[in-house]
């Protein structure tokens, strides 16, 4: 042990270099997070090792990435964001401001997003886009449905976890929100089964970060049919991306001050308006009535 100060301060590099290094550090922490590791392991098993070769509908498998990469990813980033809260007296007086730290945390969502991209590739390998299981949607709309169900939730869930971690004190908040979203999606899906033609029900169904677009009838009967529900999968992606932007902005708002805060609030207003418009377009666009093929 020495009691002398043997060297001066190392060179510092404010700005992009620090942000990149911090984002890499946070990404490494996410990748080593047990909840996220479990989620990735489960998805890998479900899509690579375990899927039923005789798959008869898409809706049994495509929520998995949303649940595990999105839902569990949300819980992982929530934990990641909260983990430094105890050290805030130290962390809070460093030159890296809280919005920059939040931005670095948001950057980790690239990992679940990449996992979502891999998952969708595997999914279309298992069930090609040309398969009749997708119902009466056009090939491009089928891709849009899958992107909205697999890739975007994998991105949005972790971003929502960061926002939640920045603003909510309750340690179980991410799990409660996960249950609420799961419950809401289940509820509106059941509602849609009985009121498939209703525009209001279509809005309710799409007012969520995840939505089903098809319903498969009795898969054991010889001539089963796939019904495409109302709504535009393309505009739904827009709505989901607007939600992602809102999550990022809400997260960044914490600790922002001065002009940065004003800009974030302005951007939030724009993203909120865009989300509303895209939700309406998603509900009114696409098929305007249930179509069975």
């Amino acid at each position, binding site marked *: 042990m020495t009691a002398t100060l043997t060297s001066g*301060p190392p060179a510092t590099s404010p700005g992009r270099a620090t942000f990149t290094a911090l984002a890499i550090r946070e990404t490494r922490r996410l990748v080593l997070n047990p909840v996220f590791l479990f989620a990735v392991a489960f998805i890998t098993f479900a899509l690579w090792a375990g899927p039923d070769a005789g798959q008869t509908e898409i809706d049994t498998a495509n929520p998995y990435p949303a649940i595990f990469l999105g839902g569990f990813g949300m819980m992982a980033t929530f934990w990641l964001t909260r983990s430094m809260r105890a050290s805030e007296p130290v962390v809070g007086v460093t030159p890296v401001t809280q919005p920059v730290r939040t931005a670095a945390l948001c950057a980790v969502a690239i990992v679940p997003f990449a996992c979502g991209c891999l998952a969708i590739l595997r999914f279309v390998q298992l069930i090609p886009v040309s398969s009749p299981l997708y119902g009466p949607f056009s090939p491009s709309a089928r891709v849009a449905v899958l992107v909205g169900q697999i890739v975007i939730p994998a991105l949005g869930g972790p971003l929502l976890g960061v926002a939640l971690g920045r603003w909510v004190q309750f340690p179980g908040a991410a799990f409660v929100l996960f249950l609420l979203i799961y419950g809401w999606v289940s509820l509106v899906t059941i509602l849609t089964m009985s009121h498939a033609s209703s525009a209001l029900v279509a809005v309710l169904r799409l007012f969520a970060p995840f939505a089903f677009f098809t319903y498969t009838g009795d898969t054991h009967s010889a001539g089963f049919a796939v019904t495409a529900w109302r709504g535009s999968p393309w505009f739904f992606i827009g709505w989901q991306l607007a939600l992602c932007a809102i999550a990022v902005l809400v997260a960044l708002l914490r600790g922002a001050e001065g002009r940065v805060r004003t800009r974030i609030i302005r951007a939030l207003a724009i993203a909120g308006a865009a989300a509303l418009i895209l939700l309406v377009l998603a509900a009114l666009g696409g098929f305007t009535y249930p179509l069975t093929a």
Partner: protein
Amino acid sequence: MVTASISLRGVGRTFGATRALAGVDLDLKPGVTGLLGPNGAGKTTLLRLLATALPPSQGQVSVLGLDPEVPAERTGIRRHLGYQPQETGFPRGFTAFAFVDYIALLKEQSQPAARHAEVRRVLDLVGLGGLGAKRIRAMSGGQRRRVSLAQALLGSPAVLILDEPTTGVDPEQRVTLRAVLAELARTSVVVLSTHQTEDVAALCERVIVLDRGRVRYDGPVTELTGQAAGRVWLADEPDPAASISWRTGTGRYRNVGGRARDDVEHVEPSLEDAYLLLRGGSPEHEPAQEAAS
């Protein structure tokens, strides 16, 4: 070249209806300044103000010639600031090295090799060189305290604010810490709050005594100690003339304050004696309306 200086003019801080600091005027230059005062005197509030963790309710604070109320200038201060709060929480799963390395990254030291060398240096300084790989949660209270101190020493900051740095630290480490701080104080402003008057006597050239949010004494340690000359004596019994008496390890009573008889054995006063006299002679003399910040 950063000129290490701190200036406070008419600084006050309130928490709701509670006044934690009032009308504080201070000028701090390179050197070690000790901060003494009873619990709730406003020491931690003052240190948090100096560390840019808290804005003042009244008055002006200037650190290194910069205004901490201006976000860009606050960041400038933080680039040259080391702060050890009274209590530091640590994220779960972090080793001492990983935690200090994380803080180094937040201090914009993004070059891995230089940063790691700096982290090893500060861990060596606090005597944790061999324990870098140990999880903080598995460390003793004193070791955790030293991890907290290590992060404050990163980059040999121009301003070092330490809130009770020696609490729970063993005597050998305290002596080492004194050497480290004395070396750093050649060019840096070091302010430390403590209840250990012997640390202040051994290390600080200047002492500030806070009481009920106001500066009660500000001057050289020797001068404060000198104020108690002739007012400390030993006797076989507690002297009713003394403000405070206690039985020492030798079995005799140390009497402080009041009027000593001529036939008593006067002893050299310590800083603790002088502090007790300044406080009114009674360790139980606690302020009624103080904020435990």
